[in-house]
């Protein structure tokens, strides 16, 4: 059974640069086609199941806009992200 995770993207910071989507190993991130942030960007969002909470998206996010959650007990500490 694969690890289950999720991400929350803060629309205040996200600029829709697509770097997170480009590196996501599960290909579960897209730029929300119907939504626009206050600054006018289509923000990143999870658009289907399959997130493992690997945090690779957060590692490349230039805006520190992504919070990554993972189901315990297999979660590792945040510092290793």
């Amino acid at each position, binding site marked *: 059974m694969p690890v289950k995770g999720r991400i929350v993207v803060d629309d*205040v*910071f996200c*600029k829709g640069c697509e770097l997170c989507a480009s590196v996501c190993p599960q290909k579960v991130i897209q730029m929300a086609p119907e939504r626009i942030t206050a600054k006018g960007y289509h923000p990143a969002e999870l658009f289907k199941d399959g997130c493992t909470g690997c945090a690779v998206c957060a590692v*490349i*996010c*230039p805006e*520190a806009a992504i*919070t990554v959650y993972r189901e315990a007990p297999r979660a590792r500490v945040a510092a290793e992200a």
Partner: protein
Amino acid sequence: MATLQANEQVVYQRPRALTEVNTHYCPGCTHGVAHRLVAEVLDEMGLQDRTVGVACVGCSVFAYNYFDIDWVQAPHGRAPAVATGVKRSLPHDSIVFTYQGDGDLASIGTAEIIHAAARGENITVIYINNANYGMTGGQMAPTTLPGQKTTSSQTGRDVELQGYPIRAAELLANLDGASYVVRRSLHDPKNIRMAKKAIQTAFETQVRGLGFSLVELLSICPTNWGMTPVESLGWLNDHMIPYYPIGDFKVISALQKETCASKAEG
């Protein structure tokens, strides 16, 4: 911000050392990645409260808006001199770092960076190399690659007329005063993790009073390169890394022992 649900752990969250301010950087600009890494290291090493940053002139002139620490905003190229004044005037356990771009460090500020390194100034330098002048609109920088088109080398940098790029890390590593000088890249998650480790070691160099540390970070500038952020990552990998190899150019023995020891423990 969603709240933590039962049976869930936070794997990654925004570092405390960053302010809750939306940056002025273009979408995808890896200045943001570098900022985030520095903030994560300040958090993890517990340095935020005793750190003073020195911002340069260029796109990162507003770095002081984005880190929740004390800052001095230096004139163009002079950040290492300003940092010297700050560091030498504060108690010894204070941490001082500069955050400089390639125009700032490798062009107008060459004297200041060379002499700060030669003095073994106990400061940390975060050096962003994106092969052009970002803030003024993409002019040729000392780091612009041969043949690279910029707004002031419109048919491509001609080395016969405009000379060769400066590999600042290699140059500075030659100085006896430099303790830790490395180059890393921000073009993919693996390299970003390596960059963070290097930033950690650089700050650790300073904490231990071992002298001058510098991390050069290869970065993208999608707007001025005329590419999407994702295309820019590829361009960095294909064109910049061959000219600016990733590597450790100077690691003094005191740090090497530390690295070995921590590896053994790990």
